[in-house]
């Protein structure tokens, strides 16, 4: 535990002033995209289940009507996720040229996504698809917020392209990460798992936020509500631990870091999952009475799945982290 909390074991301890500033720049943007992206994903989560419900109940016309109106929401969610992906890719680029090209390509895509989003809302309002610029659903400012998001994405896109030119001309102080050769197919596998964990973390983050307002603690079943909230919280906390502890630890001790972090989260999540099952067993009405707003899938699938899905995710991810950490430790020992 002390290892990855020691300043000297963090990557940033070896960085110069410019590199640290550049690193902070990436961190800032990743958080900036994560938070609104999480809320957009939450609304998409709602809309998707509604749409699936319409299709499954032989009313595809209603699914189409909803999709036509909610397309800017889907585009916005996709834009935030794409922004996270390409800034992360640039942060972990294998060389400066690749970093510049990622910013440039990402910027072009952001401009296109932003233009489509903004134009769609603008045309939608003009044609009467949206009755007014602020209808109030799915968010209090919808669709104006989507229009503004589109404009911001265009701006972000242009700034990304501009930044790629700066990197091309002046270089980048932040060291590049050439770990592709080390992992090969495993990188792709873990990359997919990471993407899934990122989605779970984003929805978990939004669920934590909405849970504060949605969970009906006044109706009793306090324990169930807290455990459910913590289940979502750890999904989000795990990703942050991965991103800001594991990834920021020097490669030589990452195996140990992964094992320790994985062990801590595994223990916590097993306890939480067990508590979740116990609380549902004791208060079988609790999910319906207390927390339906943050269990959007359960009703429409008629299955008690959403929290369980999170529980399984929260247990599997640390197990994979521990296994991966053990393999890394073994490799380090064999290299030594």
């Amino acid at each position, binding site marked *: 535990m002390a290892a990855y909390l020691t300043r000297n074991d963090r990557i940033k301890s070896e960085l110069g002033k410019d590199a640290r500033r550049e690193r902070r720049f990436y961190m800032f943007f990743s958080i900036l995209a994560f938070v609104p992206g999480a809320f957009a994903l939450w609304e998409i989560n709602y809309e998707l289940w509604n749409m699936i419900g319409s299709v499954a109940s032989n009313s595809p016309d209603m699914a189409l009507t909803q999709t036509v109106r909610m397309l800017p929401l889907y585009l916005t969610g996709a834009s935030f996720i794409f922004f996270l992906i390409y800034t992360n890719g640039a942060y972990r680029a294998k060389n400066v040229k690749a970093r510049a090209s990622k910013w440039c390509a990402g910027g072009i895509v952001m401009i296109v996504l932003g233009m489509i989003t903004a134009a769609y809302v603008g045309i939608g309002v003009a044609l009467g698809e949206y009755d007014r610029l602020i209808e109030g659903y799915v968010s209090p400012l919808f669709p104006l917020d989507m229009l503004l998001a589109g404009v911001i994405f265009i701006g972000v896109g242009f700034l990304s392209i501009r930044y790629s030119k700066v990197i091309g001309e002046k270089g980048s102080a932040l060291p590049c990460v050439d770990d592709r050769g080390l992992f090969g197919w495993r990188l792709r596998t873990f990359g997919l798992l990471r993407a899934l964990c990122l989605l779970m973390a984003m929805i978990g983050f939004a669920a934590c936020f909405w849970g504060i307002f949605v969970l*009906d603690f006044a109706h009793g*079943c*306090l*324990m169930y509500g*807290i455990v459910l909230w913590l289940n979502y919280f750890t999904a989000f906390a795990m990703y942050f631990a991965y991103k800001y502890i594991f990834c920021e630890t020097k490669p030589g001790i990452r195996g140990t870091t992964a094992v320790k972090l994985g062990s801590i989260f595994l223990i916590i999540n097993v306890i939480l999952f067990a*508590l979740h*099952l116990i609380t549902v067993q004791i208060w079988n009405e609790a999910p*319906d009475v207390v927390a339906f*707003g943050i269990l959007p899938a359960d009703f429409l699938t008629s299955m008690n799945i959403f929290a369980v899905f999170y529980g399984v995710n929260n247990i599997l991810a640390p197990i994979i982290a521990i296994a991966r950490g053990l393999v890394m430790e073994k490799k380090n020992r064999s290299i030594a």
Partner: protein
Amino acid sequence: MLKRIVSMAVICALAVSLLAGCAKKTVSYRDHLDDYVKTMEYHDGFTILQLTDIHWHGGTQVGDEDYGSERYLRKVINEAVAHAGKIDLIEVTGDTFMLTNKTAVKSFIDFMTRTEIPYAIIWGNHDRQSTYNPNWLSKQFLKAPYSLYTEIDNDDVHERSNYVINLLNLDGSAAWQITNLDSGASYRDGAADFDLTYDYLRDDQFEWMTAEHDAVGKDVPVICYYHIAQADYDLAWDAISAGAAGYKSKFFNIEGFAPSKYCRATEDICLKNNVKAVFIGHDHADDWTFTTPSGVTFGMGVKSGKELYYANIAPGLDYSGVDYSEEFALIGASLVTLKNASGDFGIEHLYLNERDEGDFVKWVEY
């Protein structure tokens, strides 16, 4: 360090469990029977319009020219007023909202306020499924103009929207009692029960209902409204399909009924409490209504709008007893007219489809 973190996690879990408590049912309905009661003035020809499963979801509710729940509901209510002369009460029997937010709820309340017709809201399963606290939703309807919604916090009656509307004669005696029940959301046997079933009416609700009925007099006729079908519908459908005598039935059953696997038949309770009719929502593709040989009518409302899903009725469903020759969407409303204080009433279903060439409007009497 690891040991310390694990210890802290266990301590936190224990502390949380100590804080835990589920049952906060501190209020006995027996001591507060009057608090569940709203009253209205009765007259022969009292009309109750049932709107159900509106799913004021927000995705399509606002003034969209292609489709809008608000515009549609306004048409339904206007049509009902034109047809009946006056609507005295609107019963909104659940799933008014789904996967929505506070703004959408407020827009619905604004809409209902503009109708200037008293209305009674009943919780459906989906009303609990949005980015608001269920208590917040209760409070909105407790304070909304024209809303008759009543809820006793932390009482010992299952769920929320259990309240009665006593329709009073000029002398203050009850002519009819309208009983609203909350049939809950979903139910599971425990943590290992992944296959959710719908919730069901509980014995404490029936006991409360009997107590409220006893309070106005055993001879007073009752109409019940709630959301999710109990076992009566399946039993009657099977009995009628098997050729049982003495039943009357009409309208459509496209998707079957979705009762809880734990619910029971309620006819004996209805007979005990002089319940003349029960009306529910929940199943969007059904409005099937039947009367048992004992004379209790069990009706299903007509889904009010297309949100989430709805049924198209193809020509040729002769069992329905409805005379129609063209396909139409099974959406609209249901109208009950209380003919007198002796328990006589009429039922009409309104099918209203918006069409470019002119709206399809059809009233069918039960």
